């Protein structure tokens, strides 16, 4: 097991190395070059020249690349051109919101998706099956931001069941500890603050969950259907195991492999979905910030976001691979 982890970690190095090269090239190829990325459109020629000197853009390319990597490793992502603050600081402030939102989305997608996919497979050809397959098809085909608007219009603006925007009602005056609003409320025992934060997460969480939910339902269903036909399930049933044991130990465990893999692949999509949903619900996380930075041509923020997402994605998939090897011992041998 330990060797497996080490090997997977070593495999990360070329991926991250390649990614750093891609980002480096990307930054240099931006319209106007890095000095525009830092100064915005307003810089005078003298300012540009100075920045070029300061950035060492007159030095050999390898030296520049080395400096770039060193800055990345020190988590120095530069300064946002729109807020004039360090990108790292901006991200740290907003990251908790996005984490809360994506975790909510994942909980909804997994918590509803796996049972629904499983039931659809067991009741194949019945009403529930048709409904969940049809529903998941539509879920994939609805643009996330449109769904977010529809949810907001119906459940927030017309019915008033949920708040339409923000992360928490500011009049509650909740104490901030970690900036994870739900966690803060629980830690400081301000139950109403925690509940209010959760309440604010429901609609954006639902919108964000739509695509992963649809995909998880489909994959679970297909995978359970395949496992149900396996010889070992028939054997398990034939040797008189209770239906519950067969279901848990034989069907679900084997059917979960592709589902777990897909969950890892879906995290990247969730983070970029956050850009869209956070914008619609004015939810102050990284996503809404990045959406603004796109229209403002705030490239340091954009680059920081790409870097963060790539690292998170790679890490999540590492965790997925590890959990894969826990579920399926055969993976470890390979």
């Amino acid at each position, binding site marked *: 097991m330990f060797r497996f982890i080490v090997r997977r970690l070593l495999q990360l190095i070329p991926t991250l190395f*390649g990614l750093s090269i891609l980002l480096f090239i990307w930054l240099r190829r931006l319209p106007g070059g890095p000095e525009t990325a830092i100064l915005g459109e307003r810089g005078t020629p003298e300012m540009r020249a100075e920045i070029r000197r300061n950035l060492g853009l007159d030095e050999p390319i390898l030296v520049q690349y080395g400096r770039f990597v060193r800055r990345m490793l020190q988590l120095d992502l530069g300064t946002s051109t729109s807020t004039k603050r360090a990108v790292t600081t901006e991200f740290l402030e907003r990251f908790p919101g996005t984490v809360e939102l994506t975790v909510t989305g994942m909980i909804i997608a997994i918590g509803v998706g796996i049972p629904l996919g499983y039931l659809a497979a067991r009741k194949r050809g019945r009403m529930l099956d048709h409904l969940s397959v049809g529903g998941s098809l539509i879920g994939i*085909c609805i643009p996330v931001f449109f769904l977010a608007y529809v949810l907001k219009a119906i459940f927030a603006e017309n019915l008033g069941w949920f708040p339409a925007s923000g992360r928490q009602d500011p009049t509650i005056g909740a104490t901030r500890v970690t900036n994870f609003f739900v966690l803060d409320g629980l830690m400081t025992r301000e139950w109403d603050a925690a509940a209010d934060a959760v309440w604010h997460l429901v609609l954006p969480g639902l919108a964000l969950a739509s695509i992963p939910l649809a995909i998880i339902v489909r994959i679970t269903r297909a995978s359970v259907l395949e496992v149900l036909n396996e010889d070992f399930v028939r054997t398990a049933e034939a040797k008189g195991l209770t239906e519950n044991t067969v279901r848990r130990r034989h069907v679900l465990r084997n059917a979960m492999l592709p589902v777990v893999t897909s969950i890892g692949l879906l995290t990247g*999509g969730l983070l970029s979905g956050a850009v869209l949903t956070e914008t619609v619900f004015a939810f102050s996380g990284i996503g809404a910030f990045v959406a603004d930075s796109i229209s403002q041509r705030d490239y340091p923020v954009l680059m920081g976001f790409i870097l963060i997402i790539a690292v998170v994605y790679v890490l999540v998939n590492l965790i997925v691979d590890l959990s894969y090897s826990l579920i399926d011992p055969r993976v470890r041998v390979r």
Partner: protein
Amino acid sequence: MTVNLGRKGEKIDRLAELAAVRDDERGVSLWQEAFRRLRRNPAAIVGAVILVIFVLVALVGPFFVPYGPTDSIGIREGLVRSGQGIIPGPSGEHWLGFDHQGRDVFSRMVVGARQTLLVGVVSTLIGLAVGAVIGGVAGAAAGLGGRWGRWIDSTLMRFVDMLLALPSLLLAVSIAALLGASLTTVMIAVGVVSVPVFARLLRGSMIAQSNSDYVLAATSLGVRKSKIALTHVVPNSLAPVIVQATLTLATAIIEAAALSFLGLGNPDSRVPEWGVMLADAQPYLGIRPGLAIYPAVGIIITALGFTLLGEAMREALDPKLRK
């Protein structure tokens, strides 16, 4: 119908029967069989009907629209004052009402279908072409190439994995940042996003084919490796790629809409495209939600059509389900 001709006659009949069956088997190719199964699948029919209508509207519709898609007729006639929140809805003359600039929404929807189809098809073709070249080279190298082949394969695949590590929307956003907002950018950005998918798919499919018996047979007959790859392996590996292309058309249209929403779409909103129309409608959601609903429904139904047909094709081409 066997006429009694004695033992010899029976034998001949049986031989004829066997020969007939074999002829029959040879005649039904993978694609013919798949097409037969597609025709029996209601989901495929629904998907195909949606797509035929969509393509017809996109190709022919623009010639028959009642008003020019960029003609601010509503403002000229004093019917639309979006500043005061006056945007008339559907009427007998203007079937879907006006948009915020007083343009006929129905005409824009029809002309927009063409732009939407264009974005979907071109971006998918970009992804398909680049992805198929990368995947094809990697697959040929991995399947037939020995040590050098393995090296080429793993280098190409590491690159593809890297692209895959970036979420599609972000990848599209960073490309759009490089090239500036335009319709071409949207097509390139959305196309690049699907490159890793096509590359991985074709490679995987080719490697699976390289291990099959007919490749072994061709190799033992002394056929050159490059020829085996081109005439045997590639054509037999294309089925999943074609299925994926159909599914990608759906996601490409949705993804293009998301780019428009983020302000990276075609900045010239005179040319109607459903994604741009949907993005433009946001400030007027409270007054006329229809402005967002029409293009959104268009996008959803079209994406649904491509997805239904793609899924049905996947099922029909699945060798496991073949008789």
